[in-house]
């Protein structure tokens, strides 16, 4: 079928009152960006809807897949555009449309006509019943049901005629860029890419930080995190990944603090550094993939002690999810296969064999006091030697 346009449905944006046009404009911009590599498209707002019109040849499957990754879109309707506006042409086009758009022609339907062009010689009701009549004639196994039809055949008569009925679900959420900026801590595991995706889905532009610790972590582990950020960027738009050299800080903690507290103290430093980077890059929040009880550093006791260093809100969208629920999302967004590559697990030097599960803040602070005078220059150096890589997927 030759679809010349797509009608984009969105939901929550509609509730945003006076700010609505800002949300719509950003959604249009994001759609434009996403489709740019796929052809020449014209994106416009019109009466509470967004139309994407193709001005060049394009690959239908590629475009639907790309639109399916733009947050804020609830539904994508492929539209047949007809330049002739006489009834006979409309009738023939609708029959051809139904013939090609459906594999089987045995469903209940109604025709729903909207007539913006009031000079059209028939009323909407008349068009509905005439088109219904011709469709029944062409497809004897179809039935009209005006109350609960399985399919609604939409016909909009304007300067041109739009015919559409199928809605392909979009990802939902809010357009990225409508809701500030966040700094996600990416580890290379399953949870943090999912957390990044979930916050981006609520319209937040994302950046990310990765703590690199050669020789205790490998170049492949770093590449894996770049790959994960790139996968999330397919939905979230480009993600600037800040790579922090963390090995010296880890060594200092290892040298001076009790080993069962290593992870907690390390994570507190990770949050501190993430906040520094967040502030420097105009972010309002940090984001982690933590989930209650998953590992020793994610007991509520540990989370509370880690969170104590935070001055910005730490968003933890996976916090109440079971592992399987997180895995399900990671499979849906396509990060799972990359997340389970084994490089990261190989370097557990700085994970104690018996870490604390109920750390006490005052005890941790006392241990950290031993780092005074040692850690500051290392901390400064870590911030000064950050490497930034912009991760963007093939088409955004």
């Amino acid at each position, binding site marked *: 079928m030759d679809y010349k346009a797509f009608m984009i449905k969105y939901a929550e944006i509609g509730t945003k009152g006076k700010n609505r046009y800002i949300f719509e404009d950003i959604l249009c911009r994001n759609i434009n960006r996403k489709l740019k590599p796929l052809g020449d498209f014209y994106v416009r707002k019109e009466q509470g809807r967004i139309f994407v019109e193709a001005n060049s040849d394009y690959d239908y499957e590629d475009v639907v897949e790309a639109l399916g990754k733009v947050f804020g879109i609830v539904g994508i309707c492929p539209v047949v555009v007809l330049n002739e506006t006489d009834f006979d042409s409309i009738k023939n086009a609708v029959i051809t449309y139904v013939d090609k758009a459906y594999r089987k022609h045995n469903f209940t339907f109604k025709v729903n006509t909207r007539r913006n062009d009031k000079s059209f010689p028939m009323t909407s009701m008349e068009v509905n019943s005439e088109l219904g009549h011709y469709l029944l004639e062409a497809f004897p196994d179809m039935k009209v049901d005006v109350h609960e039809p399985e399919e609604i055949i939409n016909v909009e008569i304007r300067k041109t005629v739009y015919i559409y009925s199928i809605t392909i679900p979009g990802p939902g959420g809010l357009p990225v860029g409508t809701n500030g900026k966040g700094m996600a801590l990416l580890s290379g595991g399953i949870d943090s890419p999912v957390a990044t995706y979930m916050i981006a889905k609520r319209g937040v532009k994302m950046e990310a930080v990765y703590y690199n610790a050669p*020789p205790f972590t*490998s*170049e492949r582990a770093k590449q894996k995190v770049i790959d994960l950020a790139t996968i999330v960027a397919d939905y979230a738009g480009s993600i600037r990944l800040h790579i922090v050299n963390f090995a010296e800080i880890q060594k200092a903690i290892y040298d001076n603090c009790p080993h069962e507290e290593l992870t907690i103290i390390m994570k507190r430093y990770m949050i501190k550094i993430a906040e520094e980077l967040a502030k420097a890059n105009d972010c309002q929040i940090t984001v982690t993939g933590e989930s209650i009880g998953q590992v020793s550093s994610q007991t509520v006791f540990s989370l509370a002690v880690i969170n104590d260093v935070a001055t910005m809100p730490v968003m933890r969208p996976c916090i109440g999810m079971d592992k399987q629920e997180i895995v399900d999302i990671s499979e849906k967004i396509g990060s799972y296969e990359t997340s389970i590559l*084994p490089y990261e697990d*190989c*370097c*557990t030097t700085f994970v*104690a064999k018996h870490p604390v599960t109920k750390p006490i803040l005052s005890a941790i602070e006392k241990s950290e006091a031993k780092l005074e005078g040692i850690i500051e220059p290392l901390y400064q150096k870590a911030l000064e030697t950050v490497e930034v890589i912009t991760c963007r997927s093939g088409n955004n």
Partner: protein
Amino acid sequence: MEAYFDNAATTKVLPQVKDLMVKIMEEDFGNPSSLHMKGVDAEKYVRQGRETLARLWKVDKSEIIFTSGGTESNNMAIIGAARAHEKEGHRVITSAVEHASVANPFKYLEEQGFDVVRIGVDERGIVKLDELEAALNDDTILVSIMYVNNEVGAVMPVKDIADMVHDICPKAVFHVDAIQAFGKFHLYPKRMGIDLMSVSGHKIHGPKGSGALFVKRGTRIVPIILGGGQQQGYRSGTENVPAIAGMCLAAEIADKEMDERCAHMKALKDRLISGLTELEGVYSNSGEACHIASISFTGVRSEIMLHTLENSGIYVSSGSACSSNKTQNKNLSSTLHAMGLSPERLESTLRFSFAYDNTEEQVDYAINVIKKELPVLRKYVRK
């Protein structure tokens, strides 16, 4: 300084090999099966390559099949021979220290209902002949033992094994994975009693994606790749002419320079081992092969030492599994495990493997870097 000590993983292609391959890709790009001149020109390279290997190995050129590499050669030999002889018996025998491209075809045969026996090794990594003798029975159709172990360089007594197999089970096929022996030993499969022998081009400064399988005349194997019937139907698919020509040229050069190269690599290996094992808690697990040194640095996980050396431009491979991920990486440490190494040495072992172009300076540089880094790294262990 840069020191590439991972030549058992892969080697740098020789310039003359590269030049020949480029010429073939640019000028003699025909399909060797085509009837016209372009095809005939391309076929010439395949024929010459086959003649080269036949001459080096003292076999007939009809006994050589070109493949996409060592993995395919091993798969073709093992699965092909087992399938061809499955009516005569069900026992297939291999060792506990084979490369994954042998071990996994045997695992596949096991799943298909074959009776797989894996022969253990001694503390040097050499297969136990008494175990093999006990395992050989009337039902045995295939024995596959490697020539040189890829992790520690243990050299197997291939001739003795061949004699034993043929004495006890005259109908059994004897396959040898000679991938790490290619270019380091004079391979005369017929004289040694080998029926099937796998080699790979990229371990001897030839291109990746090249390999060969010697199939002794009269040895039955069922092809595992079906198609246009090239290479007497053993291995369908348009021959990879540049890779075949490149590998065979590299083999010819390796053969010509073998004594010189081996003496050089052996000297480097010995220098490295003596320089390192004088350090406390450093042990050698190395076998007799001239190009492979296996060293354990107790107290430092192998990946951490590997990445530390990498930062100084020294490239080696980790011969052991990561203890935090045993189930996933079990296969990687099969040799060290089978040799009965202590867990401490198992997780701290690195493989250094040499080529003709490594130097004494590189070896001394590596020794110095390790001397400097080892005490630092030993401080950071999981507690």
